C-alpha cells in the first residue's frame, strides 16, 4: 500500500501539487480523474520518483520512499507511461527482459518470467517485433508486461487509453481487473470516463493540483 501525505510539488517556480493526500491500497484500482492540467500525471510521476517533491511524504510499506534506492523503488512501483516509452531499438522480448538482466537475474529465470508476462498480456506472438511495428494497443500491452516483469506491488498507469480504440480500452480494463485480483495496487490517471467506469474501485477527483473529492464508488462522493 502506498500512502501520500500532504504532497507539495513545484515545477518552474509554480506549485503544481498542493498538499495532496491519498492512498492506493493493494488489490484495488484507484483512479485519479480531472481535466488536463489538474495534476494527475505529476502526482503519478511523483510517486514513481520522476518528479522531485518540495514537501510531504510518500510511504510504501511503512517506509518513506526517499529511503529506498532506485532499484528498490523500481521493484515496488511499476509505471506505464502515456506514450509507453518502449525502448525503440529493442524488440518486444528485449524490452521486457533487459530490465531483468540489468539487475542480475539469471537469464533462464528472466526468460521464463518474460514469456509468462507476454502470455498474460496476449503478446506472445510479437516477441521479435519492434515498438514501431506495433499498434498503440499492442505497445500498451508490452509496456504493462515490461512493468509487471519486475513484479511490482504497485502499478501506475498514466492515461492508459489515450492511444486506444474502445475495444482495446475494454481489453486493458479487463487486464487491470485481473491484476487487481492478483493483489497489485493499481493507480490510474485518466479523463476517459467510459474507461474509468469500467475499472473504478475508488478514486480521487483533482483540480488545479488539489484533490477536491474522494470517491468510494463511481459517481458517488465520499
Amino acid at each position, binding site marked *: 500500500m502506498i500512502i501520500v501525505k500532504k504532497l507539495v510539488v513545484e515545477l518552474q517556480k509554480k506549485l503544481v501539487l498542493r498538499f495532496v493526500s491519498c492512498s492506493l491500497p493493494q488489490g484495488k484500482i484507484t483512479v485519479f480523474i480531472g481535466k488536463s492540467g489538474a495534476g494527475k500525471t505529476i502526482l503519478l510521476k511523483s510517486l514513481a520518483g520522476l518528479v522531485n517533491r518540495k514537501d510531504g511524504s510518500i510511504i510504501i510499506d511503512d517506509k518513506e520512499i526517499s529511503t529506498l534506492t*532506485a532499484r528498490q523503488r*523500481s521493484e515496488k512501483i511499476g509505471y506505464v507511461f502515456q506514450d509507453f516509452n*518502449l*525502448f525503440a*531499438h529493442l524488440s518486444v522480448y528485449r524490452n521486457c527482459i*533487459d530490465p531483468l538482466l*540489468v539487475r542480475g537475474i539469471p537469464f533462464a529465470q528472466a526468460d521464463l518470467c518474460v514469456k509468462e508476462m507476454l502470455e498474460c498480456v496476449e503478446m506472445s506472438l510479437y516477441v521479435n517485433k519492434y515498438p514501431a511495428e506495433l499498434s498503440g494497443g499492442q505497445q500498451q500491452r508490452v509496456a504493462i508486461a515490461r512493468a509487471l516483469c519486475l513484479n511490482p506491488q504497485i502499478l501506475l498507469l498514466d492515461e492508459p487509453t489515450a492511444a486506444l480504440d474502445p475495444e482495446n480500452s475494454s481489453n486493458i480494463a479487463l487486464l487491470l481487473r485481473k491484476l487487481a485480483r492478483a493483489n497489485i495496487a493499481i493507480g490510474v490517471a485518466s479523463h476517459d470516463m467510459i474507461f474509468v467506469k469500467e475499472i473504478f474501485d475508488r478514486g480521487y477527483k483533482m483540480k488545479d493540483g488539489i484533490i477536491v473529492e474522494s470517491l468510494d464508488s463511481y459517481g458517488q462522493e465520499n
Partner: protein
Amino acid sequence: MNLLFYVPLLLKGALITLSAWIVAGIVSLMIGTFLGIVSCRYLAGTKIRMFVKCYTFIAKGVPAYVQILIAYFVIPALLGINIYGFFAAVSALAFCSSGYVTEIIRSGINTVSRGQWDASFVLGYSIKATLLRIILPQAFKNVVPSLFGELEQLLKSTSLLATIGITELTRAGMNIISRELNPVVIYLTIACMYLLFSAVLQLIVMYAEA
C-alpha cells in the same frame, strides 16, 4: 619516371598517415564521447556545460594547422621539454577533432527522447546502464553519418603533419616530386590513395547504417 621505384616510400607515408588517423580518431572519439555524454541536456550541470562549451569553442575555433604548430613549437617552449613531432601533431589533431565529435555526440544524445531516460529510471537502470544499453545505442545510430564525416575530415587533416616535417603520405609525395620534378603523376597517385581510404570508410558507414 618509374613510379614502382617509389612505391615503398609512398606506402611508408601511407602507413604514417593511417597511424596518425587511427590514433587521433580513437583519442578524439574517446574524448568527444565522454564530453558529449557529460554535457548532454539530461546530465550536465551549469559548470560542466560551461567547461565543455569553452573546450569545443577553442578546439573548433583554432585551425588545425595552428594547433599543430602550437603543440609542436609553443607547448615544448613553454614547458621546456621536447615533444616528438608525431605525438604533438596527433595530439593536436585529436584535440581539434574532439571538439566536433563532442558536439555530434551531444546532439545525438539530445535527440533521444526524454521518455527513454524516464523509462530507464522507473525500471531501475543505473545511469551507466541507461547510457550503455538505452541511450548511446540510439544516439550513435542517429549520428553515424556525421561521425564518419568527421573521421573522413580527420583523415584529410593528417596531410597537415607534413608542415612539421613528418613524412606522411603528402610529404612523401612532395619529397618524390622534389627529386623527380613530376608533380602530375605523384599528386594524382596520392589523391587516389586518399580516395581509397575514404572509400573504405564509406563502406564501413554503409555497413554500420544497414
